[in-house]
């Protein structure tokens, strides 16, 4: 019986998240469109509201082209790795008090593990396609994920030290209920590092080198088409949502808001997550792209020292206060 309940919960979560993903693409296209003084999708439904569904149907029925020289099993499997790892990390995210599938004690670590695993999908996709652009994209992605995992982890160490836990629910509750007790303020350096590392981790502009369109055509997804392409796309957006959720949980006080919304506790959480996603999109509409070596330089020479400094300051602060 318990298993059935859990399966039901998982199913509901999946459906809701996938719908959100679909509309996050719509949201992105609309926002970027208007920032670029155009309109974005307009034709399918009122102001293109049904566009994500049309896209989904289209990519589902499209021909799935597999290059003749590709490593077929890996080629087929790579997008699944990406998607599954991203979906798995959803399990530990608390959307509201008690609204979590698996309230495990190492939630933060689990999410790190999963997002690192997702890069396997990218690398395998790059390798298995047996194409030069995808290979370069895969290599870039590997280097990028490895070097940005470190500042991402280190930037959250401060949060762990303040809350004394890796459990995401505990992190939220330890931030208290008020605006001023959000970890954003004591951890402003950590937040800065986290934000940049988050952009890099999710392959977003200005760090979208693995799929840099004007350099590597489409990077690691060059050879993918149809549903498999859509799987990568979904994985990318779920990754964005997961990272935005972590940012919300660790720095913006999770589901806590100025007042309680009856019947729908995750309201503030979702609002904050969408705030993050809007920021992602806004940055994409504004900034150019870094070069590969500059990206490494930024990660190793700026973000990691900053994150370490943040840990030091947080430690000093804790010692002085207690």
């Amino acid at each position, binding site marked *: 019986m318990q298993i059935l309940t859990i399966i039901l919960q998982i199913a509901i979560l999946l459906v809701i998240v996938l719908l959100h993903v679909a509309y996050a693409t719509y949201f992105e296209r609309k926002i970027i469109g208007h920032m670029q003084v155009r309109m974005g999708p307009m034709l399918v439904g009122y102001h293109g509201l049904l566009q994500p569904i049309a896209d989904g149907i289209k990519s589902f029925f499209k021909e799935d082209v597999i290059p003749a020289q590709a490593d077929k099993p890996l080629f087929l499997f790579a997008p699944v790795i990406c998607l599954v790892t991203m979906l798995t990390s959803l399990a530990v995210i608390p959307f509201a008090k008690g609204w979590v599938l698996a309230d495990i004690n190492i939630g933060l670590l689990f999410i790190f593990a999963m997002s690192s695993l997702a890069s396997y999908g990218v690398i395998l996709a790059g390798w298995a396609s047996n194409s030069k652009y995808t290979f370069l994209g895969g290599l870039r992605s590997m280097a990028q994920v490895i070097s940005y995992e470190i500042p991402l982890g280190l930037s959250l160490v401060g949060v762990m030290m303040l809350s004394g836990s890796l459990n995401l629910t505990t992190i939220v509750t330890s931030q208290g209920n008020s605006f001023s007790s959000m970890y954003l303020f004591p951890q402003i350096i950590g937040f800065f590092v986290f934000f940049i590392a988050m952009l890099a981790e999710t392959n977003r502009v200005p760090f979208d*080198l693995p799929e840099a369109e004007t350099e590597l055509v489409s990077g690691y997804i060059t050879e993918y088409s149809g549903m498999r392409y859509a799987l990568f796309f979904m994985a990318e957006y779920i990754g964005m949502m997961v990272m935005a959720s972590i940012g919300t949980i660790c720095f913006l006080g999770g589901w806590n808001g100025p007042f309680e919304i009856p019947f729908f506790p995750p309201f503030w959480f979702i609002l904050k997550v969408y705030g993050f996603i809007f920021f992602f999109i806004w940055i994409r509409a*504004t*900034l150019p792209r870094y070069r590969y070596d500059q990206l490494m330089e930024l990660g190793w020479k700026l973000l990691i020292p900053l994150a370490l400094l943040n840990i030091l300051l947080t430690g000093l602060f804790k010692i002085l206060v207690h």
Partner: protein
Amino acid sequence: MITLTDTQTIDIPVQSGDEDRYHLKLGPQHPATHGVLRVDLDLDGETILTCDPKVGYLHRGFEKLAEHRTYAQNIVLTDRLDYIAAMSNNVGYCEAVERLLAIEVPERAKMLRVMVCEMSRISSHLLWLATHALDIGAMTVFLYCFREREVLLELFAELCGARLTTTYTRLGGVRQDVTRSIMKKLDKFVEDFPACIEEYETLIDTNRIWLKRTIGVGQVSAEKALDLCLTGASLRGSGVDYDIRKHMPYSGYEKFEFDVPTGETGDTYARYRCRMEELRQSNFILRQCIEMMPPGPILGKDAPDLIMPIKPANKLEVDVPAKNALITLIEDRDVFMEGDIYVATEVPKGELGFYFISDGMGRPYRMHIRSPSFIHIGALSTMGQGVMIADLIAIIGTLDVVLGECDR
């Protein structure tokens, strides 16, 4: 070390010591090569060891086609050279032919030519900025540039009936006069445009990522740039003050006040700054055109008819009605002189030269086009050595090549 599979080794002869290299054929179908340019790269990681541009995918044989068409008919071909700035090509071609055939152009037509040239310079530079920024990843500049370019293309459509393939000039003048509505719209454009340039600059001019991606990238010294035969803003970015509009004025450019911006460092950023400054200067020239447009005819007294005979002299007298202006031309002034001429004009991309050999017929015996894009692509193998792939894309962008002109 990268192991190559069987299929990949088929067309790449692996020489000894060559095993560590990664061969990448960038293009001809690639989003950042501005058309159908192919660049063969030897990579070590992401660093380019050798860079070998391959052209010719858009070859249409214009130089040969021109040998079978009259001078007037060839104007149509020039539209399709640099299809981004067709007006400049039209003017360049007509300047050359008019000097060959000694045809006078009235003042108003000269001013109209300057006006359309500068309009097309702005629209070409806008497209350059758009694609250059897009290559480097700044997506929004692309659409802001197209917003202004659209205004200019609409004006072209109103002026001569087509947005890109303008065919605006004629030997001895231009085809259409401006109307008041065109000048009103142009006036508004000239008024608004400086604010638009500010907008582009807000997005990229001081942006740290843009600076990192452009400063020191694709650097060429002044001597090197001259050796590579770079012209236009690509040369001026290196600090060489060379602009045909200023130094060998044609079409009445000597009457206009404008500066020739030159850079110092010769890198991508300097060239970017030069072109942005040129946008302002062109805008200034347009303002002067609006203010100083002289009255008068748009076609010269001795402008030949659109129907030019290919065969000169005796056969002609039989075929064409006697009132044709061209006959008087041939009889009176002996225009179809034998000889050759090279005339260069400053188009947005650089120096566009037309070289004609005339054998006394109504069509060129040989027409050679010195297209700036072709020569700039030649510089790519030098400039692209030792940089990273992302820089190569930036360099292709900064050289501002159009493959229609390169392959012609």
